Each structure stands twice: as structure tokens, then as C-alpha cells.
């Protein structure tokens, strides 16, 4: 067999196809934008997608872990809002930033761990538990205050205004944080025992249990990660807006789920890649950018386009699943 024949016979492993489809979709959308709109191809426009969606990216990373185990976390948007609110309130009461930062992260993680424990030990559907978590977190926001709280703390304003420059381009520190989170999660999912367990639990809880894998620790772990990521996302959002409010991030859970699904992760769990989620967030960001550049399209088109994309990818998943059978 010649090398050419081998090359022609080479077939992509089927498991990469969804991620590649998302990558292709992003490439097409970005090219269409670059061709149609003047200035769209500017690198800074691309970097702005990251700057504007850094918090969504972090939240979507946490959501990926949860969905890979076959669960879902509806509380992320509310936890993001709660984090902005707690940061705003604590800082306004004169707490130092180095105490507030770890504290809100710990609270986010603890909320996630609590939900994970209820889901695992009491066998209640993740959907309803995280729904209660969402009510709880939003309710707590409004108990702190019904108005938005401005943040004037030095650390926050510095982080909001700092731009990391290279040449003519710049990114915000939040982007660096998001990228670090993505890299850490990529490593955890691909190269650690915990990552393997996540896929195993998502593939089949019974089998994972019979193999002797720590299902309880994994299940509670992914919800803790999602809670932590939401809290971190909330911090990034508060750097971005320099305020805390209970009305922030309404419906963010839908964007995060959409990004994960568009990224090719199966909602039944056990299959998917974090790289897909990153591409999914990029696709959502590109939709927003295109609609901004178009100017004549109203903001609600974003939601319709996201809905259509969700539909396409979910139907694709179904077709793939039926074929496998």
C-alpha cells in the first residue's frame, strides 16, 4: 500500500467529528463576518470575543464537567450573580480584597458540593436540585440587596482597567484567568484519574461502580468544580462591570449549556471534549459580534440564532446515536 493510498484510506476517528464540526462552523461564521464587514478581521475584534466572554468561558468549563457525567447544573447563572453581589457587599463593608476573593470562591464551591451531595446521596434528579440551588442563590442575592452595588475597591478597579498589551493588541487579565482555567481543565480531563472517572461515570454509573471507581467523589467533585467555576466567573464578571447585582447573568446557564452542546458534548454524558466547549463559546461570541457589526439586526436575533444552532447540533447528535445503534 502506498503512502497516498494510506492517506486516502485514513478516516477520522468518529469521536472527533463533533468537535471538528464545531470548529468548521466557527471558521465559516468568522470568514463570513470577515468578508462581509469592514474591520471584522482585525485581531483585536477576535480578542474582544475573549474579553467579553471570559466569564462565560469559565462557567462553561464547569458545566462541561457536569454534563460529561450526565448531569446538568441550572444554578450557574444565579451563583455568578450571588458572587458579584457578595463581593460588592463585602467590599463595601470594608473587607480587604485578599479575604473576599478566596471567600466567595469557597462559598461557590461549597454550594456546588452541597448540591452534588444531595444529588448523589439522596438520588434526586440533578435538574431539580440545581433548580432549587438557583432559587436559593438568586434569593440570597436579593436578601443582600435589591439594588446593584458599585465596586470601588482598588484591586477590582485595577484589574478592570489593566490591559495586557502585546504590540497593538491587548487583552484583559480576565482572559488570562479564563485561559488558565481552560488549560487546567484540559489537563484534568485528559491526563488525570479524576478526568477518567468523570468520563466513566457519564458512560455508565453502574459500570463505573462495579469497576470500583469512586462514583460519589466524582459526582460531588464535578458539581463542586461547577460551583467554583461559577464563582470565578462571577468574579470575572464583577471585574468587567465593577458592580454586583442580583439581576446579572439571568439565563447564563442556558448560554453555558448551549456552548457545551454546540461543542459536541453529549448531554447523556460520557462523550465530549473541552476543546469543543471553547469553540462553542467562540461560536456564541461570534454570533454576538456579527449582530453588533450588522447594526440593523436587533439583539433578540442572538437568541434565535443560538436556538437554531442548538437544534442543529442536537439533531446531529441524535442522528449519530441512531446510526451507532
Amino acid at each position: 500500500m502506498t503512502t497516498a493510498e494510506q492517506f486516502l484510506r485514513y478516516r477520522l476517528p468518529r469521536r472527533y467529528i463533533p468537535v471538528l464540526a464545531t470548529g468548521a462552523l466557527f471558521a465559516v461564521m468568522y470568514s463570513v463576518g470577515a468578508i462581509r464587514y469592514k474591520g471584522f478581521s482585525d485581531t483585536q475584534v477576535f480578542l474582544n470575543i475573549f474579553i467579553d466572554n471570559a466569564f462565560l468561558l469559565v462557567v462553561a468549563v464547569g458545566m462541561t464537567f457536569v454534563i460529561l457525567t450526565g448531569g446538568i447544573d441550572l444554578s450557574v447563572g444565579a451563583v455568578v450573580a450571588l458572587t458579584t453581589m457578595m463581593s460588592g457587599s463585602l467590599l463595601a463593608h470594608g473587607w480587604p480584597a485578599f479575604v473576599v476573593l478566596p471567600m466567595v470562591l469557597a462559598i461557590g464551591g461549597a454550594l456546588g458540593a452541597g448540591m452534588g451531595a444531595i444529588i448523589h446521596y439522596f438520588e434526586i434528579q440533578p435538574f431539580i436540585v440545581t433548580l432549587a440551588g438557583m432559587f436559593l442563590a438568586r434569593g440570597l442575592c436579593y436578601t443582600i440587596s435589591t439594588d446593584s452595588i458599585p465596586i470601588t475597591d482598588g484591586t477590582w478597579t485595577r484589574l478592570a482597567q489593566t490591559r495586557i498589551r502585546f504590540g497593538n493588541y491587548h487583552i484583559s487579565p480576565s482572559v488570562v484567568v479564563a485561559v488558565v482555567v481552560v488549560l487546567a481543565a484540559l489537563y484534568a480531563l485528559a491526563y488525570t484519574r479524576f478526568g477518567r472517572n468523570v468520563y466513566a461515570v457519564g458512560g455508565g454509573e453502574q459500570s463505573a461502580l462495579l469497576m470500583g471507581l469512586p462514583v460519589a467523589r466524582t459526582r460531588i467533585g464535578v458539581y463542586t468544580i461547577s460551583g467554583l467555576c461559577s464563582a470565578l466567573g462571577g468574579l470575572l464578571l464583577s471585574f468587567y462591570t465593577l458592580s454586583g447585582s442580583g439581576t446579572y447573568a439571568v439565563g447564563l446557564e442556558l448560554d453555558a449549556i448551549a456552548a457545551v452542546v454546540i461543542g459536541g458534548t453529549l448531554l447523556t454524558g460520557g462523550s465530549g471534549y473541552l476543546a469543543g466547549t471553547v469553540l462553542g463559546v467562540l461560536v456564541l461570541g461570534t454570533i454576538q459580534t456579527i449582530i453588533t457589526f450588522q447594526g440593523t439586526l436587533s439583539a433578540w436575533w442572538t437568541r434565535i440564532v443560538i436556538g437554531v444552532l442548538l437544534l442543529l447540533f442536537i439533531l446531529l447528535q441524535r442522528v449519530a446515536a441512531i446510526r451507532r445503534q
Partner: protein
Amino acid sequence: MIAFTRHKLFWPVLALVLLLLGNLVFTPGFFNIKVLDGHLYGSLIDILRSAAPLALISAGMTLVIATGGIDLSVGSVLAICGALACLRISKQADQGAVGGVLLAILLAVALGVVLGAWNGMLTAGFGVQPIIATLILLVAGRGLAQLITSGQIITVRSPPYRKVGAGYFLGLPIPVLIAIGMVLITVLLTRRSALGMLIEAVGGNATASTLAGVRARRITFMVYVFSGLCAAIAGLMISSNVSSADGNNAGLFIELDAILAVVLGGTALSGGRFSLGGTVLGALIIQTLTTTIYTVGIPPETTLLFKAIVVTIVCLIQSPAFRAKVFQRRRRPVVVAGPAAVEPEKAPTGDRA
């Protein structure tokens, strides 16, 4: 007495009665009902009227949940249908024309049915998970509603349309009568025919029911259509009550309240059994709770906190694993002492186990 407390509607009824009595402490005239211009007025009537759309949507949701599914899109469907009706009426030369209003209402209801059929097609036809299938319409629906209203809040001045959500008939608010009528028809259809049993069969185990000759797909499809219909009528009530359509905020998060009402009423989220009476009670509890919080003077936003606590407690009590773990010590001696035949009945039926 024990048989009485074991009745499945005992706890919801008790919760509602306690809530209502609690109100009497804060508002002395809480139970007063006055007759003004031939209409009934009073806090209780207010609660009934505000609970009507929620009760209706929850009734649709009950059947969906009974098949083991869930419909997250009801809030969006409600907003879309309200928007369509208001748009049609606002475009009329004479907004008070009864014929035009009826046509608008019919169109909106038909749209609700079509949207329900869309959800049904995705779940029953393509086999997409219900949470995900209805998530699509939840995300895109708000956009569609705003597309219909062009991002504006459409205000209508139509006396006949206003009757749907704010009118009175025989002294009672029309939305309450509509909700009672719809729920009664649903109860008759499901409990006086085999339909209810078939729905429960599909929820218990779709594959097994198909093998037993039940047209599981058709039944699944139908419950989503019914849920869409209920959401459309609720959308008419809400938009008519405030004489305007707000694509962004009408019925926001009502899907969560509806699910909560269903759960409070004793319908298990895993499917396989349902109680429409319980759901109506659940909707009344939620509305009474909301009204109570308003009258007592607690900031209304904290309603969410109460709901979170209530959902958690109810779900924990419903969970067999929780009962096994927490009540284990108390139960074990009973198993030893009591007759073995009685014990298994305590365990809830239709769970995944």
C-alpha cells in the same frame, strides 16, 4: 386518622390551610369576601385569579411530567402567544370588535398548539431528551416573542380582550372559570377514560408500554401539544390582565413555578403517576405564599428563598433514598414488629429504584 394522613393530598391541603390561617394573623379581614357591582372581591378571590394562569400551565406540565418528560418552554410559549394576540388586536381598526378579538385569540391558541407539537415532534419523533428539546424553544422563544413585538411592549385598549384576564362572569373572575373548566375537562378525559392510565404507563416505562400495545409515541406527542395549548391560554390571560404583551418578561420563570406546583402536588418527577388535584393545590400554595409575602411586607424578591427551601424539603421527602437513610432507625423496629405485608406499601411506587 392514619388513613386520613396517608391520603396523598393530605400534606398539600394542610400546607395550604396553614398558610391561609397564617395570613389571618397578619391581615384580620383576610377571609372577607365582598360583593361589589355583582362581582366578588377579597384576598381569596385575588389569590384565585392570580393563580389561574399558573394552575393551567401546571396542569399541562403535570401530564408531561407524568410521561417522564418535562416542558421548559411554557414561559416562552406563553410570551409568544400573548404577543401574537396583542399584535393582531393592536393592528385592528376597531380594537373593541369582538370578531377580531376572537380571531386573534384563536390564532394565538393555534400557535400554542403548533409550538407544543414542535416540542412533541422533537421528543416523541426524534427521541431527543425532553429537557434539551424544550430548552431549544426556551432559548429561542423569547427571541421569537420579541420578533413578534419588534422588541416593544405592545399595549392594547380592547374591552372584549380585557375580559379574558380581568373580566367577571356570574360574579367570578373569568380566568378562574377558564382554569377550572380546563382542569375539569382534563380530569374527566384522563380519569374517566383510559387515557390517564396510558399516560402513566408511558411514564412508568415507555418501552414496556409500547410492547404492551400502548402507542407511547403518540401519547408523548399529545401531552406536549396539550402543554402548549395550556401555555397559550395562560399567555392570553396574563397579557389580557395587564392589557399588554411583554416578550421579555411575560411569564419569566413560570416554568419553574409550574414544576414546583407539580412536585408540591405529589406528582413524582420520574413520571409514572400524577395527581391533577394535587397540582392545582400546589399552584394555590405557591400563589398564596407569594401573596402572603407581599401582605406581610417581606421584600417580594425573597420569595425565591422560600421556594428554594420548599422545593428542597418536598424533594427530599419524596426521595426514597432520603427516607431510607434518614428514617432508617425509626423504621427498622417497625419492620420487625409490624406485619410484613403492610410495610412494602409504604414504599412509593413507580420509582427507578
